[in-house]
Structure formats: structure tokens, C-alpha cells
């Protein structure tokens, strides 16, 4: 008999976060004898719509959809549903056409946790610089919301600089942080809205030879981010459970395909990761 | 639309505007402050062929450009058919009835012959381009000029002479009342030129006026009614008849008299420089060619257009591939895989297509002249700018090129560009010097200088091959003449037995 076929439409494999999920889905599929067909949209929603159309033609029994673009498009979900294919949305969900189940990190809560931690370790005082992700995207908006909620309870932390990157890239983080330090040499906290941005900021701080300590925090728990937490470059990051989400996504997809019920929304907490607890995460990503 | 214009012309009584159709009054033009034309005045009547003569760089093409709306004069006025005339664009000039064949061929290589002929004025029918009519008219015009090719062929595939004929066809189909022909015969052979003259005769009969520019003075008496001469941008002579002795024209142009055009040739040495055995072209343009050239000898290669002469010399130079045959240089077999090998072995070529093969138009004279000499100027690979400049300046002086080393080649007159391409190779003292159409577009004075130069090169023991469509040039300058016809070697004539009749008999055989 034919193995079950599952389609995996990834937003952009150039982002470590998505690549982790993809690897987890594929590993789990191998373990279960399921065939996964993966498509990479390179961040373009239109490409992704095409790819999902192809996956549907190919005859996948369920679709794991990690939406590309600023926010999730509903069209692929509707197309899949029209062909009676269940959809598992990961990371982002289309507001106008929700998937059968939605798996994501509770970003607002996670960013709030991170903000509270920053408030704690700085003693509630400092000048904060924020390197934003791509403006208008869901993760950027959620992380902004959660972090601001935390700052509202920590009046001593003052945001002195805020600049957006275009593509969440590390070298953008570097240049932006370097230019921020040029203007505000007294920055004491950097929040990179993704680990790559935070790591870029860390490099900028390193070569700036400042006379005070700078707390740098990231978000995601990328491979590189965790190592940076371990060696103290980053004070903390919020580790998203990519491996678990990948496994969960495949599981949910298979259950939906088999006609079983799955919860409509499956939000996952992210782990506040510091030097104290990073070890196990590096050995085995959650 | 074109048809309407044709009718209009037919309706105009020819005799009625026999008076001055075009008049220039005090025209002047300067490029970046350097005057090129000064105070030029002349008139042109209906149905008249006015020859415009002058040395290279005298300003002939510039004057044409002013009349045809390519350039605007800095001073002076023009009148056309009785009204003030100041064209702002070539389109306006064409609309007024003035057409130009530009000296530098200006065709669109990736379009068909017919589309080139009718570029900018495609015949339309029912809102669509009427290809059938366009092709038919292009074919008819080309046949009248003696070129029998499919009008749908891409111009890229045509050789230089055929391209020139397309260019002429383009002008002749314009139904212009004034046609400026800037060296139309420079790339043509005798037969093709004759065809053109016949066309000019016919159109003149219909009342079309011509401004005719040429360096071939023997043509002037043949077709012109009157002659004007430019020297350094000034109009220096007006002859109301074309039956002016060539020597007078020469003096007008150059400001001195030229004793003899063709220098005496010393007898060649016995030492063989190049031997060609059973050479066949990879593309079939020629086959079974075999001859030898000796030290101090000038070998002419004659033939009508398309005979395969250019192909042959390009193959010897390694620019095109050969299918079979042998090349021996000073008795040693050579493997020449490309021009680079040829140059190293001591063979150089002045190619026939100056613009496409000879000159870097957008680069300076100095760069153009040092091209091909860098290995000698910089034996260790290091360039010394001062040395390069001196080198370029010396060559410019030696051939009397009108231009400065740092000037872009594009700004030179056509003839001066040609001199530059020849000059490039002089410093190398090659064993074999091949020149394909060496004097295309070169004025008489400079031509004599180049002939003397060739004779000097031969006198110094170099072997020379010249390919030319001007029979007189081959006859006057060669020790022996190899005649090709349709890629076959028809024979080699000695200087003593060679005359135009003998050569043409072989060439058309």
C-alpha cells in the first residue's frame, strides 16, 4: 500500500526557525513511514499559493502550511478545503480562513516573559534599543505587543532607539546596531526581535569597545542563538519548541487525515532560556 | 502614405524648379570649440549632381549632417525649395524630402533587409505592416542595384558590400528630392558602382538633386555636374563643370600637387615568406587555394564582391577556421589557431570592416593605437603611461591622423579612423602585412601616402597582401595579382601581363 502523503509548504527555508520545523516534520515522517513533499516559497505568498496548488494536484492527504508573506493568506486553506484536504497551520493563521488546527508559540506571552526578565536583570533601569523584524508581519507585531506590555510595568527601562530590518538578517542587525551605538553610546539593552538580529547586535557591541556592559536578548532559540546564550553573548532568548511543533504538526495532519478531531488552536509556550538552563536545549532542541 | 508622396512628386513639373533648390549661406559648426566648418555657402539645383570633395576630416560628413538634420549649425542659414530650412531632427529633413546615406553604415543587423530599407516608413495596409509590398519593393530596388538576395534575410548575414547596397537602397526608396550620398561606393566593386551610377542618372532625369561625396576622383567626371571642394572646413574651390583635371582637384583639396599616386616598386627578393597550399575554408567560402608571397613582394587579390577574398585573408590570419590545407611561414608549417598566433608569427591584418572589426569607437586614439602592441610596449606586463602616449603620438604624426591621442575614436572622420587601424600594425614590423580594402574612405593625398608606405614596407623586405575592390589600386600596387571567382583561384597574373581586361575576364569567369 502507498504510504500516506503529506504536503509541507514552508514559508522560507532560509530562516532557521522554519528550517528547524521542516527538519522535525521530515524526521518524524521518516520514523512513521509517511512521505512528505516539501516546498519552499522563498518568502513569497504567490509562490506558495502555486506550490500548494501543486501539492493538491499531487494528491497529498493533508497539508502542513507555514504561511509566507507578511501575514497568512487564506487562499491556500480554501483551495485545500475545496479538495477535502485538511490543513495544519503553523506559526501564522489566516484570519479569514482558519486552518483545521493552528500550532504556534504564544508570542505575545513569550515576549512579555522576556521583557519581564530584562526588567529583572537590569534592575529595572536602562536604555533599550530594539531592532525590529520586518514591519507589518505577525511575529513583529506580537513580539512588539508582549514586550511593550512588560515595559509598561518597568518604567525605568526607556526605549531610546527602534529601527526595523527588512529581512530579519544578521548583517542587518549588525549595521543597525552599529549605527544605533554611534548615536546613543549609552545603550544598555538590545532586544533583537529574532536571534539573528540579536547576534548581529552582539557583534556590533563587541567591536564598539564600550565601557559598560550591554544586555542583549533575542527571540526564537535558533541553533546559533542557543550557543550564544551558552557562552554569554546573549543574556537570554525565548526558545520556541520547533522540534515539538514539527512533530505535533505531522501528528495533527495524520489525525485530521484519518478523520479524527484535533483542537482548533494549539498554542505552545516558549521557554525563557538563559545560561542556567540552556544546556539541555543545545543537546536536544525542544 | 509613401504612395501619396510619390504621386505628389510626379505631379511637380520638373522644369519649373530648375532654379536653386537648396542653398547654404555661411554655414559654420564647431565641436567643443574647435571649428570644423566655417562660412560654407553653395547652391544646388534640381536634377543636378554636385560633387563634394575634400581630404579626410575636411568636414564633408559634418556638412551632410547639418543638411540632413543630424546636427544643428552654429551659424549660417539654409534654404530649401525657396523657404528657410532649419531641420531639428532627421525626421524633419526626411519629411522635407532630403535623404542621406551616411558614410558609416548604419543598419540594424537583426532586422531583415526589407525592414532596414523601409525603417521608419514601413508601408501599411489596413493598420498592418504590408510585408508583401515591403519585400517586393525592397527586392526590386536591390535588383536594380545588382544585389539578388531575399529581402527577408537578416542584414547581419550580409557582407560589407551588400550592406552598402542595402544602405543605398534605403536612400533611393525615400523618394527624396535631394539625396546626399556620403562615399556610397567606398565598399563597392566596379560593377556595383556602375549600377549605382545608372540609378543616379535615372533619378537625376526625374529631377532629383544629389550631393555626392567620394574620394574616388575618377568617378567625379563620370557622374557629377559641378564640383565644390572643402579644405579644413572652408570652401576653397567651385568648378562649374566636372571636367576638371584630377591634378587640379588634388591641388584644391590638398593645397599642393601630388606627383604620382602609385610609387615605383622594387623587385621582390627570392626569399619566400608565406606559402599557402590547398587551403579550404571551413564554411566553404573558398577552396583549393595555393600561392606564395615573397619578401619585398606585394600580392594583390582581386575578384568581384563576394568572391571570397576577405574570407581567404581572414583564414590566413586565423580569424576564421579552415577545413584543410597548409600554411608555411618562411618554410615552416604553422598552426595558426587565432589572430593571436598569427600576430606572434609575424602576420598582421587590417580588416575590411573598420567599425565592426577595426576600431574601438568609444575609446581613445591612444588605446586604439596601442591595441595589439601591448606585448611589445610592456614586455614585462607593466604599462608606462608616458611611453604609451609617446607611442601613440608618434604613430599619429607618422600617418598624419587628424586627432589627439586622448580623443575618442568616434570623433574622428572615417578616413582618419582607417589610418589609425593601419598605423596600429606599423610598429610591429611584421613579416607579412595583409590589408583588406586598405584605402576605403581614404582621401587621395592620404591614399598616396599609404601606397608609398606599402611600397616602403615591401622595400624593407616585408611581404604584403592587399585585397581591394578598386582594380586600379590592385593593378598599380602589386607585383602579382591573384584572381578569385566564387571561391576558386582563377589564376595569378604578373604585373606585366595584368591589365583590367585580363583581371576582369578571370574574375567573372
Amino acid at each position, binding site marked *: 500500500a502507498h504510504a500516506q502523503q503529506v504536503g509541507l509548504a514552508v514559508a522560507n527555508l532560509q530562516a532557521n526557525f522554519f528550517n528547524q520545523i521542516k527538519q522535525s516534520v521530515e524526521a518524524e515522517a521518516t520514523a512513521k513511514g509517511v512521505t512528505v513533499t516539501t516546498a519552499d516559497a*522563498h518568502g513569497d505568498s504567490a509562490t506558495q499559493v502555486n506550490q500548494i496548488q501543486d501539492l493538491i494536484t499531487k*494528491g497529498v492527504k493533508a497539508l502542513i502550511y507555514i504561511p509566507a508573506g507578511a501575514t497568512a493568506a487564506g487562499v491556500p486553506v480554501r483551495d485545500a478545503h475545496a479538495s477535502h484536504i485538511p490543513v495544519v497551520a503553523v506559526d501564522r493563521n489566516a484570519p*479569514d480562513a482558519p486552518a483545521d488546527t493552528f500550532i504556534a508559540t504564544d508570542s505575545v506571552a513569550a515576549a512579555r516573559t522576556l521583557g519581564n526578565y530584562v526588567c529583572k536583570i537590569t534592575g529595572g533601569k536602562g536604555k533599550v534599543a530594539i531592532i525590529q523584524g520586518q514591519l507589518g508581519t505577525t511575529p513583529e507585531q506580537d513580539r512588539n505587543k508582549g514586550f511593550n506590555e512588560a515595559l509598561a510595568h518597568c518604567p525605568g527601562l526607556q526605549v531610546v532607539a527602534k529601527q526595523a530590518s527588512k529581512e530579519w538578517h544578521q548583517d542587518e542587525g549588525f549595521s543597525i546596531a552599529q549605527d544605533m551605538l554611534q548615536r546613543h553610546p549609552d545603550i544598555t539593552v538590545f532586544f533583537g526581535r529574532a536571534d539573528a538580529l540579536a547576534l548581529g547586535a552582539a557583534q556590533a557591541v563587541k567591536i564598539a569597545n564600550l565601557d559598560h556592559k550591554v544586555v542583549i536578548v533575542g527571540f526564537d532559540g535558533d541553533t546559533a542563538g542557543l550557543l550564544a546564550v551558552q557562552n554569554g553573548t546573549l543574556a537570554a532568548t525565548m526558545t520556541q519548541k520547533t522540534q515539538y511543533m514539527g512533530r505535533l504538526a505531522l501528528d495533527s495532519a495524520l489525525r485530521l487525515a484519518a478523520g479524527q478531531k484535533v483542537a482548533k488552536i494549539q498554542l505552545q509556550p516558549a521557554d525563557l532560556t538563559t545560561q542556567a538552563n540552556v544546556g539541555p536545549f543545545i543537546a536536544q532542541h525542544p | 502614405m509613401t504612395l501619396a508622396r510619390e504621386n505628389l512628386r510626379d505631379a511637380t513639373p520638373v522644369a519649373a524648379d530648375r532654379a536653386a533648390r537648396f542653398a547654404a549661406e555661411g554655414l559654420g559648426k564647431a565641436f567643443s570649440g574647435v571649428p570644423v566648418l566655417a562660412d560654407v555657402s553653395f547652391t544646388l539645383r534640381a536634377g543636378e549632381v554636385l560633387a563634394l570633395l575634400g581630404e579626410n576630416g575636411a568636414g564633408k560628413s559634418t556638412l551632410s549632417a547639418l543638411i540632413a538634420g543630424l546636427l544643428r549649425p552654429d551659424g549660417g542659414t539654409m534654404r530649401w525649395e525657396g523657404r528657410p530650412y532649419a531641420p531639428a531632427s532627421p525626421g524633419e529633413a526626411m519629411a522635407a524630402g532630403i535623404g542621406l546615406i551616411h558614410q558609416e553604415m548604419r543598419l540594424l543587423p537583426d532586422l531583415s533587409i526589407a525592414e532596414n530599407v523601409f525603417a521608419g516608413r*514601413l508601408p501599411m495596409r489596413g*493598420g498592418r505592416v504590408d510585408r508583401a509590398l515591403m519585400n517586393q519593393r525592397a527586392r526590386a530596388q536591390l535588383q536594380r542595384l545588382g544585389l539578388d*538576395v531575399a529581402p527577408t534575410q537578416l542584414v547581419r548575414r550580409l557582407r560589407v558590400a551588400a550592406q552598402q547596397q542595402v544602405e543605398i537602397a534605403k536612400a533611393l526608396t525615400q523618394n527624396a528630392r535631394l539625396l546626399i550620398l556620403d562615399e556610397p561606393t567606398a565598399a563597392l566593386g566596379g560593377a556595383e558602382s556602375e549600377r549605382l551610377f545608372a540609378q543616379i542618372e535615372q533619378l537625376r532625369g526625374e529631377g532629383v538633386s544629389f550631393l555626392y561625396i567620394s574620394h574616388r576622383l575618377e568617378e567625379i567626371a563620370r557622374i557629377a555636374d559641378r564640383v565644390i571642394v572643402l579644405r579644413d572646413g572652408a570652401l576653397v574651390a567651385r568648378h562649374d563643370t566636372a571636367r576638371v583635371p584630377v591634378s587640379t582637384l588634388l591641388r584644391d583639396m590638398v593645397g599642393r600637387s601630388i606627383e604620382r599616386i602609385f610609387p615605383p616598386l622594387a623587385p621582390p627578393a627570392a626569399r619566400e615568406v608565406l606559402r599557402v597550399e590547398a587551403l579550404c575554408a571551413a564554411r566553404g567560402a573558398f577552396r583549393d587555394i595555393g600561392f606564395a608571397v615573397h619578401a619585398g613582394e606585394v600580392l594583390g587579390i582581386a575578384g568581384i564582391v563576394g568572391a571570397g577574398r576577405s574570407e581567404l585573408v581572414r583564414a590566413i590570419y586565423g580569424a576564421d577556421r579552415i577545413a584543410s590545407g597548409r600554411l608555411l611561414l618562411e618554410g615552416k608549417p604553422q598552426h595558426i589557431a587565432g589572430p593571436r598566433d598569427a600576430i606572434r608569427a609575424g602576420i598582421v591584418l587590417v580588416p575590411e570592416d573598420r567599425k565592426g572589426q577595426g576600431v574601438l569607437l568609444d575609446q581613445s586614439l591612444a588605446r586604439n593605437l596601442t591595441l595589439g602592441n601591448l606585448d611589445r610596449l610592456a614586455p614585462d606586463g607593466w604599462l608606462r603611461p608616458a611611453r604609451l602616449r609617446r607611442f601613440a603620438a608618434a604613430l599619429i604624426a607618422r600617418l598624419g591622423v587628424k586627432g589627439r591621442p586622448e580623443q575618442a575614436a568616434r570623433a574622428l572622420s572615417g578616413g582618419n579612423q582607417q589610418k589609425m587601424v593601419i598605423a596600429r600594425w606599423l610598429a610591429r614590423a611584421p613579416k607579412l602585412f595583409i590589408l583588406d580594402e586598405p584605402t576605403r574612405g581614404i582621401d587621395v593625398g592620404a591614399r598616396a601616402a599609404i601606397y608609398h608606405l606599402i611600397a616602403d614596407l615591401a622595400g624593407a623586405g616585408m611581404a604584403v597582401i592587399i585585397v581591394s575592390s578598386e582594380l586600379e589600386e590592385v593593378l598599380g600596387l602589386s607585383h602579382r595579382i591573384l584572381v578569385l571567382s566564387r571561391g576558386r583561384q582563377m589564376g595569378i597574373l604578373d604585373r606585366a601581363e595584368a591589365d583590367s581586361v585580363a583581371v576582369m575576364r578571370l574574375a567573372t569567369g
Partner: protein
Amino acid sequence: MSATAPAGPAQGFLRRRIAGAQGPLVGLIVLCVAFSLASPVFLSLRNALNVIDQITVLGILAIGMTGVIVIGGIDLSVGAILALATMTMGWMSRDFALPFPLCIALALLAGAAAGLVNGLLVTRARLPAFIATLTMMSVARGLANLTTDGEQVVGFPDWFTRLSTVRHFGVLSITVTLFIALALAATVFLNFRAGGRSLYAIGGSAEVARLAGIAVRRLTLLVYVMSGLLAAVAGIALAARLDSAQPSDGLGYELDTIAAVVIGGASLAGGVGGIGGTVVGVLIIGVLHNGLNLVGVSPFVQQVVIGLVIAAAVTADTLRRQEG
């Protein structure tokens, strides 16, 4: 030399159209055969319709780009203009509640205006096309983002999304029909209208074209305006397909579009190219992506394969031309 018998005009025309695209066409056919063997679902009407769906946006962009490349120019701004148009439409509809057809008209206007600026920068400021359209690429993308501060717009009228989703008579959606109509119109223009033929002359040599009395500036302007306008049309088709408009729409499409035109046999040096070839080029890209997805090739390997196939398709064409 005169052995070529003159073909009848109609037959000659067809033959020439196909000949122009022959090399890439062979590549396309080989590709289709290979995918048919590799995937049981490739060769089906439904999949063919999918492919046409999928190439519509790229195809519309490529029509405009063909004109630009034929005159020897280049347009790097098509992706950004596409985004500017979709965002203009979305913004006008969301924030100003204008009637939707008016929003569409404004989007088209924005595209044409951006194209006009490109054209003016090229003809008046005499910027190289590369720089002029690079400028527009940056400016139009910035403006597209500024409209809604980077947010996407969702919720278009139903009739609008149906333009791309409903296949009339089970076959063609309105957007696909529009693409085909535009391609035909462009073919007719480039082959039969004096203006279209003049573009080839301009691409061959702008100077020669000027000497022949062709209105080089006006036609250049027209070509860039058309490219901008078609980018807007493509943007509207994209928005209908995605049922949303976002500032990142069309990011990086410029390179795909240029690639499609060049794969179709056009030369960046100008003077060569045509809609037939371009459509084949677009189809090659579309079929390649579609087929590799159907076969289930992993994404990283896809990148490698796509590169190799493009090289192979164009090499075949180059070799053929050398022989001929």
C-alpha cells in the same frame, strides 16, 4: 544566394513566429515529456490549467518586459511597481472606502505613472535604464510600504477574487483570459504595427532609428509606461489570486521576469525578442516549478535543477543558432 523561395506571407509568418522560439520550445517539450514520465498527474488538463494559472502574473509582467528588452532597456522595477499598484488598490479601498472599480483604476494609474517616471528618467534625465529603474524599484517599494505602514490589506469584494478563481466553462478564469488577450495584442503590435516594428529598430541602434525618422523618445516612453501599466495589471491579478495585498508582493520578480524573456530568446543588447519566445520562456519557468513540485523534489535540489535546466535550454538554442 537567391535560392530562398519566398514563402507565402501567412505561412512564413507562422513559421517565423515558431522559429523565433524554437530552441526554448524544444526545451519546453523535452521538459514536459520528462515530467509526464516522472509524475502520473503532470499530464492532465487540470494540471495544465494550474500551470497557466500559476504563470499568469509572471506572464503579464514578461509581456511588458519584452518591449523594454527589445528596445535594449531593462526594467528592474516591475516587482516594486506591482506592489505599489496592489497596495494603492488595497489602501484606497480599506482606508478611503472608495468604490472598488475606482480603486482598480487608481492602481492602474499608479503603475502607469511609475512607468512614465521610468521613461522620463531614461529619455530626459538620460539615466541608464538600469539606474532609472533601480531607483524606481527602491522608491515604489518604499511607497508601497508607506501606504499602510507595511501592513497587508485583506477582504476584497467577492466578485474581485472570483476573477482569478472561477474557471469559466471549466477552463479559463478572467485573469488567465486577460493574460492570453494581452499576449495576443502584444504579438500583433510587435509584428504588424509600425510602432511595434520600430521598437526593434530602436533596440538595434537608437541612433540609426533616429536617423530613419523614428520617434525614439516617444516610443521609449511608451514602452516604459506600458511596462509599468502591465506591472499594475499583474498586481491586480495577483491580488485577486491571493485575495490580499501586501507590500512584499512581487519581491524579486524582476529577475524572474527578465530571465523568462531572455530564456525566450531575447537579447539584453536589444533588437531581438518576441512575445512567442517570451511565453515559451515563462512556460519553461512555470512548468519547471510545477513539475518539480509534483515529482516531489526537495527544495534545495530544486534550486540546483532549475539552474541547470535554464542553462541547458538556452545552450540548446545558442548551438542551434550557430549552426544555422
